[in-house]
């Protein structure tokens, strides 16, 4: 059937289709920007090229054919080099990008349209598996909308040219490509209605499927799709040079979001502990080699945690117990080490085999730094600031098993490293002298020493992010040089000084890195921890199986004092627009990424309950109506009731007559507002257009009646319903 919409010329449709195709390619290419650690050059080039093509289609038309041919040939070596030098996945992504760039600017024939759609679909599926960000959700939505419009316009062109492809070719050659005009012509009720209804149907079906199908962990099933991350923050690794944590503070992006339980009590400035470090040398704290070796050992897997922490559980599903659950959403490429608040009862991660634990330093690390957002849940959190020590009995067996055959001369091994001082004698002496000053000949326990040492540091030094250390003769160690001066310093100076002072006084101590504080998001009640919240503090062994948190940085609470806490409902926090946007992201994480089967089941049950409740309400209403009707009918009749009923009947009869004479079915009635002109005239025109020749005999009358319905005066119309009925019989 020939398309009846006269407002869309084929030129406009062709322009529109071309632009939509390019837009579709552009949206797909921009999804690549979500992938961290992927070479963005092809995506940037392709985005620029396609954007220019959309804004200035005439320029694309001017590109001579040989350039495209050359480009098509050039892709082959480019991809070969890619495959050689990279993994399969990045190479595949790059190839796809180059192909989409080519195709989205050159799609005129039908097979080319199909190619473009398939390429885009492939890329969007790939990026969807590799990333699952909120932005990607919007991109996917945009892609679906554009793809529907693209196919719609493509179909409209097909029906319009009726197989006359030569005509189409001619139109393409001299098409002026007025994009704005073409888009305006799309603002047509029929097109818009069709497109919007298709799009909303798609979204609705997708939502239904999302609720209904069982969740699968894509990463689990398709091990092919794993991107190696290249970027990471050195401040949160197993070796921290002085100043590295502070350098993270320049990054204002959000590193961690923590969803807290409702009605919970949360610390006002929580410490998000990532890793503790024991070995010290020349201004750098690191994990001692024995502990590093342990990371790769099977003993570090969470399955063996019962050995050290009989009261802790690690699993892939939440526990059955009813306790507070803190859900952590860690952004990609922050650290392998997962921030936690301290000791806990239960930890839920999506994949246990990816996790390794360090019981001595109380850390929980991923095998690889995460390239996409990961989430984990912690239950039964202990906010006291104490971290239990691993029983001494466990040391020997573990450490001896990892140290076999490796000789490390001149180095102490764990746990001796916990008392390590600078190897430089002058510096070590300085720390011993200062520690002696603090002790002042008294015999102190760890807590008292920590308080005194904190006061000692605070009295001598102020806080500042900028530090210029003066050269001191005979001393290279930066911490010692700082300690000897009265210069201001940042948290790392305070923390390392404290650790070394404590060690000099004979207390085992270690440096802890992580985040401190974080902004409270009042929209969705969660912590937004930024990279600029990076912090370093210390832990000192109390001699009774616990490590006490000591934050020697000025302005922190003293060691051993309980942290100030607040109810979630009482917290006030950021409520500006950026906080709102961020809360959307958390909603996305909560609902889409971290959507486990329990919540899914809950949603399905809620949906079912809602429908059941609705049905029961409807049922009650029907029953009560029935009873009312029964009573009404069985009540004695009088003249009023009789006239009331006859009036009702008359109205019904009239309504029925009107309906019959209007000869419109419900479809016509519903669609009428979206169509131009009289619905009966339209319908008659539609029926007429199907009758190609004027029929003879009985049918001629029907034809004439149809013509009268379409073109005749309304006063002279025959009964339309009968005419349409007769016309149906005709066919």
């Amino acid at each position, binding site marked *: 059937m020939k398309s009846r919409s006269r407002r869309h010329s084929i030129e406009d449709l062709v322009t529109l289709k071309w632009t939509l195709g390019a837009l579709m390619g552009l949206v797909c290419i921009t999804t690549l920007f979500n992938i961290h650690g992927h070479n963005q050059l092809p995506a940037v080039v392709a985005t620029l090229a396609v954007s220019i093509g959309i804004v200035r289609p005439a320029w694309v038309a001017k590109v001579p054919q040989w350039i495209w041919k050359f480009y098509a040939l050039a892709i082959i070596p480019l991809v070969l080099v890619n495959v050689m030098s990279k993994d399969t996945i990045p190479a595949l992504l790059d190839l796809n990008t180059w192909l989409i760039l080519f195709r989205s600017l050159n799609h005129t024939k039908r097979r080319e349209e199909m190619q473009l759609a398939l390429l885009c679909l492939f890329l969007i599926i790939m990026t969807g598996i590799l990333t699952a960000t909120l932005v990607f959700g919007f991109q996917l939505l945009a892609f679906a909308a554009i793809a529907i419009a693209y196919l719609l316009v493509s179909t409209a062109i097909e029906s319009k040219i009726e197989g006359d492809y030569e005509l189409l070719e001619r139109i393409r050659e001299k098409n002026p490509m007025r994009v704005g005009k073409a888009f305006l012509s799309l603002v047509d009720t029929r097109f818009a209605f069709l497109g919007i209804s298709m799009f909303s149907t798609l979204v609705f079906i997708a939502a239904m499927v999302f609720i209904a199908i069982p969740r699968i962990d894509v990463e689990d099933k398709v091990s092919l799709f794993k991107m190696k991350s290249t970027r990471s923050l050195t401040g949160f690794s197993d070796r921290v040079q002085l100043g590295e944590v502070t350098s993270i503070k320049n990054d204002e992006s959000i590193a961690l979001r923590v969803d807290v339980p409702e009605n919970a009590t949360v610390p006002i400035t929580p410490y998000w502990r990532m890793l503790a470090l024991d070995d010290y040398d020349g201004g750098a704290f690191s994990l001692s080699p024995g502990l590093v070796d342990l990371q790769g050992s099977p003993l570090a897997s969470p399955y063996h945690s019962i050995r050290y922490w009989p009261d802790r559980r690690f699993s892939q599903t939440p526990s059955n117990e009813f306790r507070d659950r803190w859900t952590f959403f860690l952004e990609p490429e922050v650290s392998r080490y997962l921030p936690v608040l301290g000791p806990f009862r239960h930890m839920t991660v999506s994949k246990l085999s990816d996790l390794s634990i360090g019981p001595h330093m109380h850390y929980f690390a991923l095998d690889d730094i995460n390239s996409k957002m990961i989430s984990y849940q912690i239950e039964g959190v202990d906010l006291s600031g104490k971290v239990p020590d691993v029983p001494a009995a466990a040391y020997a067996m573990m450490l001896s098993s990892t140290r076999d055959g490796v000789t490390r001369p001149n180095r102490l091994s764990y746990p001796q490293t916990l008392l390590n001082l600078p190897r430089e004698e002058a510096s070590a002496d300085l720390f011993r002298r200062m520690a002696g000053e603090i002790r002042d000949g008294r015999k102190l326990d760890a807590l008292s020493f920590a308080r005194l040492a904190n006061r000692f540091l605070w009295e001598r030094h102020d806080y500042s992010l900028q530090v210029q250390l003066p050269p001191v003769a005979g001393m290279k160690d930066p911490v010692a040089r700082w300690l000897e001066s009265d210069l201001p310093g940042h948290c790392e100076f305070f923390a390392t000084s404290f650790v070394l002072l404590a060690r000099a006084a004979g207390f085992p101590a270690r440096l802890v890195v992580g985040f401190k504080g974080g902004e409270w998001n009042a929209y969705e009640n969660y912590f937004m921890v930024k990279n600029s919240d990076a912090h370093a503090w210390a832990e000192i062994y109390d001699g009774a199986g616990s490590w006490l948190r000591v934050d020697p940085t000025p302005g922190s609470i003293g060691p051993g004092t309980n942290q100030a806490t607040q109810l979630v409902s009482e917290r006030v926090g950021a409520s500006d627009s950026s906080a709102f946007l961020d809360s959307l992201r958390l909603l996305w994480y909560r609902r889409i990424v971290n959507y486990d089967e329990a919540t899914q089941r809950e949603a399905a049950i809620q949906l079912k309950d809602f429908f059941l409740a609705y049905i029961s309400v409807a049922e009650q209403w029907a029953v009560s109506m029935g009873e009312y009707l029964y009573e009404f009918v069985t009540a004695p009749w009088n003249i009023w009731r009789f006239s009331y009923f006859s009036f009702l009947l008359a109205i019904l009869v009239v309504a029925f007559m009107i309906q019959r004479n209007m000869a419109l079915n419900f479809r016509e009635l519903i669609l009428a507002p979206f169509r131009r002109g009289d619905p009966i005239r339209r319908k008659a025109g539609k029926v007429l257009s199907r009758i190609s020749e004027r029929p003879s005999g009985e049918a001629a009358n029907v034809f004439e009646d149809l013509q009268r319905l379409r073109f*005749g*005066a309304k*006063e002279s119309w025959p009964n339309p319903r009968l005419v349409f009925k007769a016309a149906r019989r005709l066919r």
Partner: protein
Amino acid sequence: MMSEFLPTDALSESQKILGRLKEAMGRRIKGKEDVIDQALICLAADGHVLIEDLPGVGKTTLAYCLAKAMRADFKRIQFTSDLLPTDVTGVSIYDERDRSFHFKRGPIFSNVVLADEINRATPKTQSCLLEVMDHGKVSVDGDTHAVGTPFMVIATQNPVDYEGTFPLPESQMDRFLMRLQMGYPAPESELEILNDGQPSYDELEVTDVVDPEEILSIQKTVRQVFLEPSVLEYVLKLVTATRTESEFKAGVSVRGSIALKAASQARALFHGRDFVVPDDVAAVALPVMGHRLNLRRPSSDAMEERRMVEGILSRLLSAVVQPR
């Protein structure tokens, strides 16, 4: 839109009258039904006809038949180069008895006027037809005289001979509702004509079948034929298309669009309908608009130019989408 409702009996009556006319004319003019139809449509639409073709194909016969069948007052004016306007309209003559001028009516005061070989007269004489063809009135010496009702001018001209002719100006052309072509008859029709012999025009056996009053009632009925808005829009689009077409010197005038509408209505009535379908418009578009259009680059050959104009018109007809 017609607010008046067209009664069914008026419709069938009109159709019957036109049928009778057609049948009577068909008896004399063999194998030219389409031309007869169009001439009758013109009559029904209260328009004038220009019949343009080679000599001897039956132009004058058609005009005679039409006039005779109507039982109407019929005059024939043979246009020549020395014909004067007063020869057509009439002249005031001094009457010595009452010493005043009396208007002596010319041949134009009639119901059907055959203006034969109209292009042979001088433009001055041609122009004397302008007023009467528009308003049915003649103004002579400051007095206005109404001509008969119904009033129809049937003009003929030979487009091929240029010798001693004065081509009709556009303003004159515009006053004809349609331009018709006779064309050669089909061989079998011509055989019939040959068999019949050739009676003189006055011997034409066309019986009076219609009264002038009946024609007037038909013309009134035609004006009541219904046009649906989309069909009216179609008329407008066709006219607009000629105005934007670059190959034409000028598009169809407003009088032309009114003519197209009236002719469509007449055709609908002729086919027994009280409403116009797009096909009616398309069918009369060529004869109604063809003579109103001139090419920007005129051709030396009149027949050639006419063919080209009609070619462009057919293209426009297929380009403008009919309402469905």
